[in-house]
């Protein structure tokens, strides 16, 4: 934990240094099989698999591509996607940077890396005008895979998810049912959804309902 409130910007490590039980936005919905509507299990007939990737480190970077580009390359080892709707991963596939708007990017890294990353970026960026905000508690990442994943998305988003319009390496912020979501295409076989914490349960219930046709199964 570092309290730097005397500096111009206060950074804050939100992770405890002892083991504390955590709850993701979907912990209850996905794990409590005893609930009245238990999460459907993955079976051989599942044409869509749903899996939450909880507790990842999520950082919002604000600034111009000029300012942030070099720092991101140096610290993360990936080049900042400067073209709209770009999504890039590092060699391990564990860390990603996504274009959100002309001066905004979303960085997702393995759980617990976010504070160190923020500090290193701040160090490299120095006195430039930028902002880094930790939003790890505010959103969660969902992975959808399977033959019918695209059709399930067609039920949920008005965005054109046809591969000709939504190839690998693209990420978009879109309307999702009556909420919103970030939709990403990390590979040919998978889609990712980044959901806001407070809307996650609604989006989960939506996907389970709409996925009934495809035998959607939830990986626990």
């Amino acid at each position: 934990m570092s309290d730097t409130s005397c500096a111009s910007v206060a950074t804050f490590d939100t992770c405890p240094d002892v083991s504390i039980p955590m709850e993701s936005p979907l912990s209850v919905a996905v794990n409590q099989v005893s609930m009245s509507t238990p999460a459907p299990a993955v079976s051989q007939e599942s044409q869509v698999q749903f899996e939450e990737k909880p507790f990842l480190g999520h950082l919002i970077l604000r600034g111009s591509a000029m300012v942030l580009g070099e720092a991101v390359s140096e610290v993360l080892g990936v080049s900042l996607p400067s073209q709209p709707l770009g999504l890039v991963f590092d060699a391990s596939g564990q860390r990603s940077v996504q274009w959100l708007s002309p001066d905004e990017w979303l960085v997702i890294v393995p759980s617990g890396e976010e504070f160190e990353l923020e500090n290193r970026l701040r160090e490299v960026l120095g006195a430039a005008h930028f902002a880094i905000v930790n939003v790890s508690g505010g959103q969660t990442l969902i992975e959808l895979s399977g033959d019918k994943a695209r059709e399930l998305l067609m039920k949920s988003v008005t965005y054109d998810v046809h591969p000709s319009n939504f190839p690998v390496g693209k990420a978009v912020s879109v309307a999702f049912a009556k909420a919103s979501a970030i939709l990403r295409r990390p590979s040919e076989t998978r889609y990712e959804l980044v959901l806001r914490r407070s809307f996650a349960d609604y989006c989960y219930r939506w996907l389970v309902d709409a996925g009934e046709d495809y035998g959607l199964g939830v990986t626990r």
Partner: protein
Amino acid sequence: MFYIHCPYCGEYRGEEEFSPKGEAHITRPADPDGCSDEEWGSYLFFRQNPRGVHHELWVHTLGCRKFFNITRHTVSYEIFETYRMGEQPKVTEQSLAEALNKTRKEESV
């Protein structure tokens, strides 16, 4: 259901991602305290509301959250162009009329 080209995302998106914010190119007076009541009232309340070409401010609420402008026909709902903040429209009531006149002249030749 409009289909709107977001000039920042660089592609078309469905209407439900956007919010309209009224007439575009309304600049806040540089010295509000120096404005007469009438000047201030006109800035606050009075809008063109034309039947025809209209320049409007919109925001890509569920997308990139950027504000931008749309030139739209208020009868046909045709969107002629979208452009970023700080840019000027290419299509106006006048430019459309001129283009129409030109076509008519060519046809009559």
